[in-house]
C-alpha cells in the first residue's frame, strides 16, 4: 500500500514525510527535507520510549505549516494513551519542528524521546539513483547541536540541527530524557538550518545582495495579502469557489526567490519540479494574467537575464534561446546533468514573446516592453536563425547533447511521445505542430510591439509578412486533408506524422488555423477519441500507440486543456470550450486538493472517477493556473483597448458567478456570468 505523504513547502524548499511526520529514504519519491535541489535531511524519525508514533489527526494549517497529533504505539491496538505528542512543523528559509509531549495522567511521567537524524545530501534530480556520499557528522552537545556536512571539492552543504531544550547528542540523533509533571507538558524546538556554503565558509546565499534584502516575511500575512490582491470569486456553486481559492493558494505556495531576483517566481511543482522551468513558468504566467499578474514581469525579467548568449552543445544553448530548466544541485554543478542552465526546448523562446505581448495587453506596462526590447528581439531572431534549422521555416529541435539532452524538446518530452498512429517515429530534426503555432503568434505579437512601442515599423512589416507566409505554408504542409486535422509533426524531410493529438488545440489558441477549418478541428477535440469526459487526451484513443496511462500517449493534462479551451473560444466554439471546462472542474472537485499535473485518459463513463497516475505531481503551477485560465475562458475575459471585455459562455451547473476586481490597465473591473440553465430557471415549464 502506498504511504500517505505529508508536505510543507516554502520557496524551493520542501519537506515530505509520512503521516506521522517521519522521513525515511524511499527511492521512488523525494522524501526528506530539500532546499536548492539538495536533500538536507533524509532520516528524521521520532520515538517515545523506543516506540514509533501513531497519528490521530493532522492540521494542515497552511502550505508551510502542519501539526501532527500523535500517540505512542501502532494503529493495530486500541489506543488509550496517557501520553500524546504534537509535532508542529513549519518551513521558511529553515525548517522548524516544535515537539510537545503531553502527560495526561495524574502522575509524573519519565520518558525517553528520541529523534534519529541523518542526511545523504542527495540531489533532488537524482532520487531514483541514490548514491553513497561521505557525510561528516559532528555531535556538539555543548551547543545542543548535531552537524552534518558534505563536501566535494569546494561544493559544500551543511545541515545544522539545534535543540532549545537540554539534549544528549550522538552521531545518529538526539535523545531527551525527560520528566513531565502530572497533566503537564514538555517541549523543545528543533531548528534545522540548511547551509549552502560560498567563499570562506559563508552561506553563499547570504553573500548575495539580493538575498541580503530578504527579510523573513511573515508568511501568513503574505499569503493573506496574495489572496486579497487576486479577484474575488462569488459563486453559487460552492465547489467552484473552493477550487478557485485552492488554486490561488497553491500558486502562492509554489513561488520561490531565485538567486538572481529579489522577487518571487513560480517553480514547476511538487515533488519533481521544485525549480525554475521555463515552459511551466511561461504557461503559468499566461494562464494567470487576469488573477495574479504580478508573476509575469518577474518571470519575464528573469528569463531575459538567463537568455542564451552563445552556442553550447552540452547545455543546448543558442543566442536568444529561452531557458527550460535551472538547477542548483550537485549533479548540475558537476556536469552530470546539463541542468545548471539547460536550454533544450523549441517552444520556450516564442512563448517568451507571446507572454511579453499578452502581459502588456492586460497591464499596459509599456515600460517593461521597452526594457525588454533587446531580449525580445533576440528571441524573435532565434526563431529563424537557430530554430528553423533545415531552412524550411519551421522551428525544429534536435539534441546536440547526445547523452544527457532531451530527445523531445517540446512539452510532450517523453522519449516516445512524437509518433504516428502506428508507432513510427520520425527522424531529427523534428518540427512539432504546436511550436509552429507559437512561432506564428510570436511574430504577429512581436510586430505589434515593434510598431507600437519600439518605433520600428519596418521590422513590424517584415514580421507580419513572415507570419502570413508561415501560416500559408503550415496549412499546406501540416494539414492532413483525408483525416481533417493537422499532423502532430513533420520529420526532417517534411514527412507528416499523422497521429491525432491534443496539439491541434494549441493551434487554435495561436490562431494559425483558418476559420473554415476550425469547426473540423473542434469536432475532433471534443469527439469520443480525444475527449475522455474529463478532458482532452494527449493522444486520441483508437490509434495503435494510444495508452490511457501514458503521459503523452493518452493521459489528460489540465494545463493542456486550459490552452485548448481558450483556443476553442477564440474560434467561437463556445460549447466545446464549456464541455472541457466542465470536465476539468468536475475532475478537480472529485480528486480534491491540489489539481494534479495529469490524470489517466480512461473514459469518464467507464471509471466514473478520475484515475490519478502515481507519478503525477501536485501541486503543479500550470495545473493550478490551468483551472484559473479555464474560469477566465468561460467568462470570456479579454483585454480590449483600455477595457476588460466580458463575454460569458458558462457550462451548465456553473450557476451564477461573479468575478470581482479583475486587475488590469482599467484598474479593477468586475465580470458576471450565469449558465444557460440558471438563466432560464423558473421560466421553463417543468415536466412532471
Amino acid at each position, binding site marked *: 500500500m502506498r504511504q500517505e505523504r505529508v508536505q510543507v513547502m516554502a520557496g524551493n524548499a520542501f519537506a515530505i514525510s509520512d503521516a506521522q511526520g517521519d522521513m525515511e529514504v524511499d527511492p521512488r519519491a523525494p522524501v526528506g527535507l530539500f532546499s536548492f535541489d539538495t536533500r538536507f535531511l533524509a532520516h528524521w524519525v521520532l520515538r517515545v520510549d523506543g516506540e514509533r508514533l501513531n497519528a490521530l489527526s493532522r492540521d494542515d494549517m497552511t502550505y508551510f505549516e502542519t501539526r501532527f497529533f500523535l500517540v505512542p504505539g501502532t494503529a493495530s491496538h486500541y489506543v488509550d494513551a496517557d501520553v500524546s505528542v504534537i509535532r508542529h512543523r513549519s518551513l521558511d528559509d529553515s525548517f522548524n519542528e516544535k515537539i510537545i509531549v503531553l502527560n495526561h495522567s495524574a502522575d509524573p511521567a519519565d520518558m525517553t524521546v528520541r529523534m534519529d537524524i541523518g542526511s545523504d545530501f542527495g540531489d533532488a534530480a537524482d532520487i531514483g539513483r541514490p548514491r553513497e556520499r561521505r557525510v561528516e557528522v559532528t555531535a556538539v552537545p555543548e551547543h545542543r547541536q548535531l552537524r552534518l556536512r558534505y563536501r566535494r*571539492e*569546494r*561544493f*559544500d552543504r551543511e545541515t545544522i540541527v539545534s535543540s532549545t531544550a537540554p539534549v544528549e547528542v550522538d552521531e545518529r540523533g538526539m535523545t531527551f530524557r525527560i520528566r513531565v509533571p502530572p497533566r503537564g507538558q514538555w517541549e523543545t524546538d528543533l531548528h534545522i538550518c540548511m547551509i549552502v*556554503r*560560498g*567563499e570562506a565558509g559563508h552561506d*553563499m546565499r547570504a*553573500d*548575495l*545582495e*539580493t538575498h541580503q534584502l530578504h527579510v523573513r516575511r511573515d508568511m501568513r500575512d503574505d499569503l493573506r495579502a496574495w489572496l486579497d490582491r487576486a479577484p474575488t470569486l462569488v459563486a453559487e456553486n460552492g465547489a467552484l469557489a473552493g477550487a478557485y481559492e485552492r488554486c490561488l493558494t497553491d500558486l502562492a505556495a509554489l513561488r520561490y526567490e531565485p*538567486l*538572481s531576483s529579489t522577487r518571487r517566481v513560480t517553480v514547476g511543482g511538487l515533488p519533481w519540479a521544485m525549480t525554475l522551468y521555463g515552459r511551466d513558468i511561461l504557461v503559468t504566467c499566461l494562464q494567470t494574467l487576469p488573477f495574479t499578474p504580478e508573476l509575469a514581469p518577474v518571470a519575464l525579467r528573469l528569463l*531575459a*537575464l*538567463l537568455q542564451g*548568449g*552563445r*552556442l*553550447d*552543445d*552540452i*547545455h543546448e*544553448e*543558442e*543566442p536568444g534561446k529561452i531557458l527550460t530548466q535551472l538547477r*542548483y544541485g550537485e549533479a*548540475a*554543478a*558537476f*556536469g552530470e546533468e546539463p541542468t*545548471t*542552465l539547460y536550454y533544450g526546448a523549441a517552444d520556450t523562446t516564442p512563448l517568451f514573446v507571446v507572454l511579453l505581448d499578452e502581459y502588456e495587453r492586460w497591464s499596459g506596462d509599456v515600460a517593461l516592453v521597452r*526594457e525588454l526590447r*533587446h*531580449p525580445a528581439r*533576440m528571441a524573435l531572431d532565434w526563431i529563424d536563425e*537557430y*530554430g528553423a*534549422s*533545415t*531552412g524550411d521555416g519551421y522551428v*525544429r529541435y*534536435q539534441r*546536440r547533447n547526445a547523452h544527457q539532452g532531451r530527445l523531445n524538446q517540446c512539452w510532450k518530452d517523453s522519449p516516445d511521445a512524437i509518433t504516428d498512429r502506428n508507432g513510427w517515429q520520425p*527522424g*531529427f*530534426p523534428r518540427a512539432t505542430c504546436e511550436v509552429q503555432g507559437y512561432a506564428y503568434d510570436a511574430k504577429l505579437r512581436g510586430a505589434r510591439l515593434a510598431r507600437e512601442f519600439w518605433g520600428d515599423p519596418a521590422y513590424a512589416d517584415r514580421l507580419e509578412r513572415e507570419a502570413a507566409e508561415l501560416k500559408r505554408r503550415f496549412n499546406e504542409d501540416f494539414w492532413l486533408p483525408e483525416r481533417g486535422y493537422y499532423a502532430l509533426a513533420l520529420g*526532417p*524531410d517534411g514527412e507528416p506524422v499523422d497521429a491525432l493529438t491534443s496539439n491541434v488545440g494549441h493551434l487554435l489558441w495561436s490562431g494559425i488555423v483558418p476559420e473554415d477549418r476550425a469547426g473540423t478541428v473542434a469536432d475532433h477535440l471534443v469527439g469520443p477519441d480525444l475527449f475522455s469526459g474529463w478532458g482532452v487526451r494527449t493522444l486520441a484513443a483508437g490509434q495503435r500507440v494510444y495508452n490511457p496511462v501514458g503521459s503523452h500517449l493518452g493521459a489528460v493534462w489540465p494545463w493542456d486543456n486550459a490552452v485548448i479551451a481558450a483556443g476553442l473560444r477564440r474560434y467561437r466554439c463556445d460549447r466545446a470550450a464549456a464541455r472541457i471546462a466542465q470536465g476539468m472542474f468536475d475532475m478537480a472537485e472529485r480528486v480534491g486538493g491540489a489539481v494534479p499535473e495529469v490524470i489517466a485518459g480512461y473514459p469518464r463513463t467507464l471509471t466514473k472517477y478520475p484515475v490519478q497516475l502515481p507519478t503525477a505531481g501536485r501541486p503543479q503551477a500550470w495545473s493550478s493556473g490551468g483551472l484559473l485560465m479555464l474560469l477566465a475562458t468561460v467568462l470570456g475575459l479579454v483585454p480590449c483597448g483600455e477595457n476588460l471585455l466580458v463575454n460569458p459562455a458558462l457550462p451548465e451547473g456553473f450557476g451564477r458567478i461573479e468575478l470581482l476586481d479583475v486587475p488590469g490597465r482599467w484598474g479593477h473591473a468586475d465580470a458576471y456570468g450565469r449558465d444557460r440553465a440558471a438563466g432560464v430557471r423558473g421560466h421553463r415549464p417543468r415536466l412532471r
Partner: protein
Amino acid sequence: MTTPAADLLRRLGEEDIHPDLPETTAGTVRLDARADGRTEHWYLTIADQRVAVTRSTAEADLVVRADRAVLDRIAAGTLHPAAALGRNDLTVRGDIRLFMMLRRLFPGPPGARHPRDVAAATRRRP
C-alpha cells in the same frame, strides 16, 4: 602576463560594441584572480553595450573571485560560469544579475555546433 583570461579581458576592452549585451545593462564588475599567493584585479565598466577594462581594486557592483586557473578555463570555454558558481569554484558578491550578463561575454565551449550544421550533417547520413 598572458593567460586565456587575461587575453580575453584585454580583447573585451578593445572591442567596440557587444551586440549581445542589452542596452539596458550597466554596472561595474571586479574580477579577483588568485594565483601564486597573490590576487590580480580586473575592473569592468559595462554601459551602452560597451565594456571598459582597467586594473583597479575599487569596490564594484559585483565582485567575482576565483583561482586564475578557474577563470582561464571559463575564458577558454571549457568551464561553464554557472557550473563554476554551483561548484563554489567561483564566488560572487553583489549584484548577481551582472554575473549572468557577463556570462555572455565569455566564449562558449570550443567545437559547439550551429543547429543548422547538425541538421545538415544528420540529413546527409543515409
